[in-house]
């Protein structure tokens, strides 16, 4: 509506220029101020825009008032002794319950739709092949203008994400699995009662705390450790972020695996022990293979957690989006880049901001696949022993 009211020579411009114009007018209408003096037609358009906004608010208020009045009238007329109020109330309550459960679905749809929409907008600036297969990440700034576009290559970010997650899994799988095995099979009752909740504390600590821990304690420690062995490890590196993320993930793997190991029927264990196997042999050759699908599910869930983790990597991975295979160097990840691209710059319509949604969608799809796989595996496994 606003664009149609603009002078003809301006509304005939290309969409890119039109975007700049609407942004300026929007700013004027909201009294934010713009660069350089506003032209008279711009001020006029801003005034028009403001009026449109005020009108729509007025119409909305009137509409609500009318609906409320009609509703009250309807209610008053309905009250008679023959009215089966409880049935109707219950039907309404049930409807509300359904609505509340629909919110969960709506959230998913909202996530997918909003991100797909913004991603498509992004792909109108940058072709998908360049995004998915590009090996350089250098988006520049949106203030440079549209003519001078940076490169938006996903590969270095994805490589950084994968490297950090792999390091995290290397730390968390052996530790978490051994913790689960020990607590489920060996630990005396009292140790289990203390150790299990104590380790689960790790899962409740906010990730920003891990990030800070990585930044001020683990990073410098690893750097000094590297110096003594003659390695150059930068204080914020894939290794730092990965190790701390691994610590965070230990309880995810240990708790889930613990549950699954205890679900393995006792008869299987007794059979193996009866044939003369030692306890460790029973665990390695009988219990763990039986629990393997469940454990794989737990590991996948943990991996999806690692890939989507943000604050640890924002603080401790160093934010350097270069393609490298050296875990001692700083890297950047998908999540870090989303944060970088969407904070500070409020212009949601530039490719520099829109790319965050493309990255988010990529992240969402990856974690969705991992989660669904994990859920299916875990569910199958449960059915097997129930």
């Amino acid at each position: 509506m606003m664009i149609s009211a603009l002078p003809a020579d301006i509304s005939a411009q290309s969409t890119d220029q039109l975007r700049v114009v609407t942004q300026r007018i929007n700013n004027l209408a909201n009294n934010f101020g713009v660069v350089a003096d506003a032209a008279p037609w711009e001020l006029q358009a801003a005034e028009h825009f403001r009026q449109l906004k005020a009108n729509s608010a007025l119409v909305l208020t009137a509409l609500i008032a009318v609906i409320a009045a009609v509703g009250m009238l309807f209610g008053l007329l309905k009250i008679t002794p023959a009215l089966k109020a409880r049935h109707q109330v219950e039907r309404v309550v049930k409807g509300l319950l359904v609505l509340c459960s629909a919110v969960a679905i709506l959230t998913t749809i909202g996530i997918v739709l909003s991100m797909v929409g913004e991603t498509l907008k992004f792909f109108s600036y940058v072709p998908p092949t360049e995004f998915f297969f590009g090996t350089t990440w250098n988006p520049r700034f949106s203030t440079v203008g549209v003519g001078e576009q940076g490169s938006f290559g996903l590969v270095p970010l994805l490589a950084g994400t994968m490297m950090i997650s792999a390091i995290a899994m290397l730390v968390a799988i052996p530790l978490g699995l051994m913790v689960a095995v020990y607590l489920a099979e060996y630990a005396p009752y009292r140790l289990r009662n203390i150790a299990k909740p104590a380790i689960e504390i790790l899962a409740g600590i906010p990730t920003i705390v891990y990030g800070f821990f990585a930044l001020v304690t683990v990073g410098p420690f690893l750097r000094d450790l590297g110096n003594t062995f003659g390695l150059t490890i930068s204080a914020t590196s894939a290794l730092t972020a990965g190790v701390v993320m691994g610590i965070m993930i230990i309880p995810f793997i240990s708790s889930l695996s613990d549950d699954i190991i205890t679900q393995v029927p006792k008869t299987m264990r007794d059979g193996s022990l009866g044939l003369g196997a030692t306890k460790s042999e029973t665990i390695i050759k009988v219990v763990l293979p039986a629990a393997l699908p469940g454990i794989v599910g737990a590991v996948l869930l943990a991996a999806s957690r690692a890939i989507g983790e943000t604050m640890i990597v924002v603080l401790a991975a160093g934010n350097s989006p270069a393609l490298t295979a050296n875990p001692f160097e700083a890297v950047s990840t998908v999540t870090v880049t989303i944060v970088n691209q969407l904070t500070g710059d409020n212009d949601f319509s530039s490719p520099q901001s829109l790319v965050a949604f493309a990255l988010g969608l990529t992240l969402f799809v990856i974690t969705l696949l991992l989660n669904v796989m994990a859920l299916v595996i875990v569910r199958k496994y449960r059915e097997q022993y129930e």
Partner: protein
Amino acid sequence: MTIIAENPIKSVAAPSQVQQKVIASLRKRHRKEKLFRSLGLGAVLISLALVALLFINIFAKGIPAFWQSAITLDIYFDPKIINIPQKPLQQADESDNDFRQRDLAWQNQVGFVNFNRLIADSLQKVLPDAAQHRRDLGRVVTSGERFALRDMVVADPSVIGQTHTLHLLTDANIDVWLKGNIDRSLPDNQQQLSPKMREWVQSLSEQGIIQNRFSLALFMNADSRSSLASAGLAGAFMGSFYMMLVVIVLAVPMGVAAAIYLEEFAPRNRLTDLVEVNINNLAAVPSIVFGLLGASVLIGWFNLPMSAPIVGGLVLSLMTLPTVIIATRSTLKAIPPSIRQAALGLGASKMQAIFHHVLPLAIPGILTGAILGVAQALGETAPLLLIGMKSFVASVPASPFDQATALPVQIYLWQGNELRNFFEARTSAAIIVLLMMMISLNGIAIWLRKKYEKRW
């Protein structure tokens, strides 16, 4: 087990070749068993040590920051410097609005008073050679403290002409120097404090004029960039508080309602199955994705204000919803069907059976789930960064629609402050505050579970 294994050795005089092999392999197998077992114990101990390390590390860094150096000064509220008219009183024929305007004009005048001179004057009494070093003199007390003096005058103008003994926070760099968080042997050009200042601070702290005092500023003030020593958590705390309020009002009832429907009413079909998978999946979606949703839908489409706790609360509500649903469903599942059947048998409708009989029994479990969900939301940072809550806000938000930040975001902002020596400790202190809140929330949840837990 070992007894059975050793029996054949004793019964036969000379072990045959096969037996020797078995004995040798048994030794090896038992060694392996021991190794495996100690590996497991090692993993448990390492994990516990990591928990301990994390906590000890944060607490060792953060606890000193709860005490901050403050200087004890006799401030004389000199009427010559505080040259202001009488505080206006509301006249009988004056409207509230007019009075408020007059009062604001008066407060504005008070704001023009040079309160720094009051501080400088009283500092001169304890520092004999102060007159020659005026630049340093103005930097002893942190710049935010002049507002504390102003507020004293505004609250009660009768202090003018009196002398009050006050504890004023010193500059952040003085705190760093006194706590030994900076290498004192560094040359002058690398020190934050001038040589004269260091000499002053040394003598003042030896005289007991500068002392470490419990830092109320950390809890009472909002964030500050001009006066680092008085930067506090109050703004972030209120921001988090409003967000948790939104979460409690939205996520908890909606989650419970959704769980009731799915557990008690929903027909078992593919659609319900889909909803279930969807909820489980939603619980595992990375939190940053919810931030993107908030940025594009709430801010982009609905034009809600950036950086407002209401938006943060909505985003966190969507994030906590699956947690609440899953917790409530498992609680409802645990309540025996006999309760429902008894109610239905007495003629209650299904809705009445659930709302009057099942739900009251499920409340402790639901509360536990809700508290854990709120605790999770309280510690979340990433989605809040995307909806603009990392902007610097120097005031305490008065409503959920004002600009605000949140506790975890404040931690993020502080860890990035340039004055590392000072803010590393202060960030740790903020983390301690956050952890304490989470621990108490979790403690309440465990207590509730223990108190009302029923085994059917």
